[in-house]
């Protein structure tokens, strides 16, 4: 007998769970990703997993599919404790996952994708193509897809690729299907087809874990829900016994227990005005003004088009329409170089990939966009470079043995400081911080917030893209919410509650 009842409140349990998680915890250095969470999946039922970005959903999926090992807790399949030591072990136990972006092979045929790793063989040990294609056709029929198994996968659209992924899941006799935001990249029509497929899988008795941000689809297809917040399970039950309001409340929680710096913003004149910025596929009709000394928050779900808009504003991509004014003057930004020259700088979300150059020492990272200021008649002056780097890294309280140290050897928080120092050294007017505290520890977070407040007080205008509600509420003077590439709402800080933010981002009606 289990010493503690972890199971969600079971009202009318029809069948025994196929898969149970009990007391699962998982930590990464500096971050507790999951803390004592439980989950039960029953055959023929769809369980929705709901939570903000960073609530621990992805970590859970990785534990379910054998990519991560939990630090504590147990996984039971049909009541038997199991260890998913590898992805293969999870697959053998009947758990398969369909990811947001399909993990399939574009250059292989549809049939090969479905049977990769367990393809039928002839007696001589050769691939039995005829049988493979026959069985692939049969499985594709089951998921309602009319796809020729011999064509290469790359010729399929994303919706059909999803179907292939699902067919693959069925080919290994999956009993548990994990769908990680499967509708994120689909059109409305494709979403409808996916819903039908989920119904069919349900009818076949599969247990389905459906991860989603979207309330309408959760209520449409799920039977049960589990809500995660900050790595903890905060609620679970049957969807017909709850309401949207209750779920929003669970997701957001009541208290915002982080401390943010006290700010007394004195806003100056208009620094940046964006009018009708649009992109053919990523975002449309973005309008706002940014004042001197202001912190403007951009909130939205992952994939709402915030970063894409910021990249266009910084000149990495080009808008198809729209204009910007900087200090009242019309400005054209066609490349990051022009953006930097106009005083707009961007600290990207993915530091490892887009931010720091890890093989270069700290001081060279800091001076990279300011080399014209540290050189004389075309030649760099190292003393000047060190002086500039020292000035800005000291302001950010960067802890490093020496400015000569390679950035790759610094912690995440310190790498972030190097990237910010690099941009401050260009003396910008507007700094765009994309998820500035993502993936850094709590102490460094507070330091970044403190610093952001200081910058604003000194008259720098800050655009902060963040998916963390406390951060948005704690730091912003004004907040723009984006949804599906458009501005969904704009709020003054005073008018804002966590609930309004979540509702605007998810596209729900305002509560009465």
């Amino acid at each position, binding site marked *: 007998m289990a010493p503690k009842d972890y199971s969600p409140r079971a009202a009318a349990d029809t069948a025994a769970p196929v898969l149970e998680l009990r007391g699962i915890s998982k930590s990464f250095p500096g971050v507790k990703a999951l803390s004592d969470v439980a989950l039960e999946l029953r055959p023929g039922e769809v369980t929705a997993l709901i939570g903000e970005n960073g609530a621990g959903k992805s970590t859970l999926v990785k534990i379910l599919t054998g990519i991560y090992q939990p630090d504590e807790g147990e996984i039971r399949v049909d009541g038997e404790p199991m260890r998913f030591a590898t992805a293969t072990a999870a697959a053998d136990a009947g758990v398969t996952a369909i990811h947001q972006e399909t993990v399939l092979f574009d250059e292989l045929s549809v049939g090969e994708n479905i049977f990769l790793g367990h393809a039928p063989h002839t007696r001589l040990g050769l691939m039995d193509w005829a049988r493979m294609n026959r069985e692939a056709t049969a499985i594709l029929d089951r998921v309602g897809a009319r796809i020729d198994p011999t064509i290469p996968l790359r010729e399929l659209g994303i919706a059909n690729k999803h179907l292939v992924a699902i067919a693959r899941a069925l080919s290994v006799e999956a009993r548990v299907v994990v769908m990680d935001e499967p509708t994120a990249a689909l059109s409305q029509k494709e979403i409808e087809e996916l819903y039908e497929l989920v119904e069919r899988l349900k009818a076949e008795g599969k247990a389905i874990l459906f991860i989603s941000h979207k309330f309408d689809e959760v209520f449409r297809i799920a039977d049960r829900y589990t809500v995660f917040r900050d790595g903890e399970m905060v609620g679970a039950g049957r969807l017909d016994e709850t309401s949207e309001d209750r779920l929003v409340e669970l997701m957001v929680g009541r208290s915002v227990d982080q401390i943010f710096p006290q700010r007394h913003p004195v806003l100056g004149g208009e620094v940046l005005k964006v009018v009708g910025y649009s992109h053919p596929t990523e975002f449309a009709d973005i309008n706002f003004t940014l004042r001197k000394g202001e912190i403007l928050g951009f909130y939205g779900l992952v994939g709402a088009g915030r970063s894409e808009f910021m990249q266009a504003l910084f000149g990495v991509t080009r808008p198809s329409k729209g204009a910007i004014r900087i200090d009242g003057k019309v400005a054209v930004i066609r*490349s990051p170089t022009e953006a930097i020259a106009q005083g707009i700088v961007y600290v990207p979300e993915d530091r490892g990939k887009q931010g720091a150059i890890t093989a270069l020492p700290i001081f060279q990272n800091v001076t*990279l966009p300011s080399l014209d200021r540290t050189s004389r008649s075309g030649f760099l002056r190292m003393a000047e470079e060190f002086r500039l780097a020292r000035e800005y890294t000291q302001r950010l309280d960067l802890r490093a043995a020496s400015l000569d140290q390679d950035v790759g050897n610094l912690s995440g928080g310190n790498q972030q400081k190097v990237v910010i120092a*690099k941009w401050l050294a260009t003396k910008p007017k507007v700094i765009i911080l994309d998820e500035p505290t993502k993936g850094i520890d709590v102490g460094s977070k507070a330091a970044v917030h403190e610093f952001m407040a200081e910058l604003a007080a000194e008259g720098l205008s800050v655009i902060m893209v963040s998916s963390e509600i406390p951060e948005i509420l704690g730091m912003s003077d004004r907040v723009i919410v984006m949804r599906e590439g458009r501005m969904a709402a704009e709020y003054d800080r005073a008018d804002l509650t966590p609930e309004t933010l979540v509702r605007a981002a998810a596209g729900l009606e305002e509560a009465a």
Partner: protein
Amino acid sequence: MIAKFLKSREAILLAAVIALILLVETRFAGFAAPSNLAGVFNDTSILIILALGQMAVILTKCIDLSLASNLALTGMVVAMINATAPGVPVIALIALAIGMGVVMGMFNGILVWKLDIPPIVVTLGTLTIYRGVIFLISDGAWINAHEMSGGFKAFPRAEFLGLPVLSWIALLIVGLFVVLIGRTGLGRAFYAVGGNPHAAVYTGISVGFTRFMAFTIAGGLAGLCGYLWVSRYAVAYVDVAGGFELDVVAACVIGGISIAGGIGTVGGAVLGALFLGVIKNALPVAGISPFWQLAISGAAIIIAVAFNARGERSKGRVILKSAEHAQ
């Protein structure tokens, strides 16, 4: 400063080169004599110059396999001009050689930059094209020493302060590279582009243009070497420097220039070239078959890459750990 140097890859390589020289000296007294070492350096000069050009390209995460073909084509062109019009001054031929090399390098660079074709494919293509053009313009004929003017052949051999001009040119290029790599924005951009192309874009550095410049510089140096090669060896033919592009890449790799881009020093490239140069000069003296030389340079490459891979892997782990936080 000194402590840091002693731990660096360059120090290890320098020690290896010195050890190699001393080893040969124990068998053949006189190998380590200054005059002989100067000869070894002179023999290695062209390799050093090309290795520096290749280094610029590799730093930006590209590779130029066409350098030796570029060298052979410019060499053939200047040799043909000299044979038909001996009156053209050598300095004009050198300028022409550099100019031709620059154009061929720019062609590589444009294809990589504007058409976004992988550099290995581009330069594999131009390697064949440039080599093919030599045959077309020369009809496969050789240009031998007696067809070349005296001045044409004498220039790289002329002695100046005890060293041949060829050696002085190599030293000059090394000096220019120290400045280019260490003291200019372009040099810094090479590292940024190769170290993290995405971040370079976000920093306002044009990745394509930086690579174009690297190819152009490498091409210009290959052109210069075209003249130096045919005048020094006093012969031009279709297969001049055939396979030499691999020696150049080998010198870079042995010198610790990361094939993945963004890591490497001028000193490393020079020492890598010298290491190969010493082997090439020592083995014939020792009466060892030139095929052993190939095996030894091959082994040196693998050892060097294994070294590099180890150095880079430990760095990667640190990054991954912090990346995991993001989950």
